[in-house]
């Protein structure tokens, strides 16, 4: 590693290296490249194996979420949020429910908050599992991925018990959950908390002090905290630069203030730090899940707010009970007017600050809904992060940034 030049040293030598008689090579990375893990294109200007400039083209799976959202009632937007960052769909669902509840002024019971915290942290673990194990794959360690991926499957099983879906969960309702967690959820979560940490420890041992992995990741894709802030980075990528900005602590939502956990931060903002920060976040998330689980089980079994105007009544009630039928009809047909107003609400997604800017004009659909997608915002920094580095480093940097195409393009 010591023989390799740092970014700054390389940049200082750049005029000498860029001899005019040798033109730069243009290399097209993507849109369907196995190493990009998603559909986006990078056109790289290469000086030998060094990247001089990278230019991104995105929008290859632009699906017009915001336009669709202007045509859908509030409860129909939840499935759209699933497909933003599909690696951690429950966080998006809960973020959307919290935004609408903020607009409507619904106060949810503590137990609902804790249930939400539990699924959000499970989703964060699932997302970080995939990001870190794929970073392993990109540095040549495929086995670790297949090993830890089984535990992601296990998280899917917990999701299935909660809501019936694996990946795009469409979990919860405005005002709470559609049903209470059953015993299998608690049992499986406890098993997860018991058996996953040793597995993760094994995976971490495989890479953390591994010479090859360290050489590949240290000092690659480093960014300073100032530049990261200027680029609007949030989440683990910002924390790896040494800034402890975490919305769960900064602006507690969903009763996060009741939990005891720490925010891990890095120092240099390179790929290795991002890996380590995510690793530690998994540990903290497991601790939060543990605390949430204890509280949920000891509390009275409520799973939604008593808000008949906004919370969909249970289906069996709809068939038997007149009032439930009326409310069901009114909610589904959009007869209940939300207040006029503008809300910005952000949750700490697995990749960073996932914000929802919701403008309501009192109609059944949002007047305007804008998603602040963390990937879209921090992926801009990629050319700066890889300038002067090797092509193989660019792959690793892209992988550690965890750019999710669905969130990138919306």
């Amino acid at each position: 590693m010591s023989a390799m030049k740092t970014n700054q040293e390389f940049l200082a030598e750049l005029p000498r290296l860029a001899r005019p008689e040798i033109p730069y090579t243009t290399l097209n990375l993507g849109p369907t490249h196995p190493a990009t893990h998603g559909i986006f294109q990078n056109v790289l200007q290469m000086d030998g194996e060094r990247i001089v400039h990278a230019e991104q083209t995105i929008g290859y799976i632009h699906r017009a979420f915001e336009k669709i959202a202007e045509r859908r009632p509030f409860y129909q937007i939840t499935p759209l949020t699933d497909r933003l960052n599909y690696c951690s769909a429950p966080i998006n669902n809960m973020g959307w429910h919290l935004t609408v509840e903020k607009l409507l002024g619904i106060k949810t019971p503590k137990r609902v908050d804790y249930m939400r915290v539990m699924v959000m942290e499970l989703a964060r673990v699932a997302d970080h599992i995939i990001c870190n194990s794929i970073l392993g794959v990109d540095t040549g360690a495929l086995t670790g991925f297949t090993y830890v991926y089984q535990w992601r499957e296990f998280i899917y099983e917990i999701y299935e018990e909660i809501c019936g879906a694996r990946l795009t969960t469409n979990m919860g309702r405005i005002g709470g959950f559609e049903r209470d967690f059953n015993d299998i959820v608690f049992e499986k979560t406890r098993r997860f908390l018991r058996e996953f940490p040793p597995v993760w420890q094994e995976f971490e041992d495989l890479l953390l002090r591994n010479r090859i992995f360290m050489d590949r990741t240290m000092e690659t894709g480093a960014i300073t905290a100032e530049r990261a802030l200027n680029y609007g980075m949030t989440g683990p990528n910002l924390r790896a630069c040494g800034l402890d900005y975490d919305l769960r602590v900064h602006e507690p939502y969903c009763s996060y203030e009741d939990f005891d956990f720490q925010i891990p931060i890095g120092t240099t903002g390179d790929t290795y730090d991002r890996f380590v920060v995510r690793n530690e976040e998994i540990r903290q998330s497991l601790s939060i899940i543990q605390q949430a689980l204890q509280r949920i089980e000891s509390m009275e079994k409520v799973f939604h707010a008593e808000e008949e105007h906004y919370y969909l009544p249970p289906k069996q009630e709809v068939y038997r009970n007149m009032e439930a039928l009326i409310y069901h009809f009114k909610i589904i047909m959009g007869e209940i007017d939300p207040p006029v107003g503008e809300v910005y609400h952000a949750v700490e997604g697995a990749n960073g600050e996932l914000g929802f800017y919701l403008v309501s004009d009192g109609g059944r659909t949002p007047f305007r809904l804008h998603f602040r997608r963390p990937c879209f915002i921090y992926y801009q920094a990629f050319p700066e992060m890889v300038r002067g580095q090797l092509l193989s480093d660019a792959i690793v940097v892209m992988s550690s940034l965890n750019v999710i195409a669905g969130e990138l393009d919306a």
Partner: protein
Amino acid sequence: MGSEIKMSNAPEGLAGQGFFATTLDAAVGLARKNSLWPLPFATSCCGIEFMSTMSAHYDLARFGSERLSFTPRQADLLMVMGTIAKKMGPVLRQVYEQMAEPKWVLAVGACASSGGIFDTYSVLQGIDRIIPVDVYVPGCPPRPEQIIEGVMRIQDLVGRESVRRRNSEEYRKLMESYYVK
């Protein structure tokens, strides 16, 4: 411990002392269907389910498809997973054209099959508008079991296909209808 290797059944044919005679179609089909090299064209959510399908839990390798071919020139099966936007359409088409015959296409998920919930100006309403599709897998996203089922249906098609099909007039007309070179 006994061997757990499962052998596929021999095709119908004439067996006797020291020889076995069958049609070329059946022999080639048997070989092809159990060694499909898929090209994962994963764009979005369904791609994550494909990762589940490939990894240890569901293990697509059991069907002879563990060798992912990321270059279209060596792939037999194009698995399109996820939304294909109109911006992506030409890329998908180029990938399809780069694949060598014989080639099959599996459209995984509602988006690839029909556009799914994204009936918008920017999304291609089903990849069969630009390339011919052999098997559609519904679901948003489909479970890994469904993806495996789709691969098995492809295997059925592959196993039964005549070796002359790709040279037939009918096939040429199909390609022409999609303007595939």
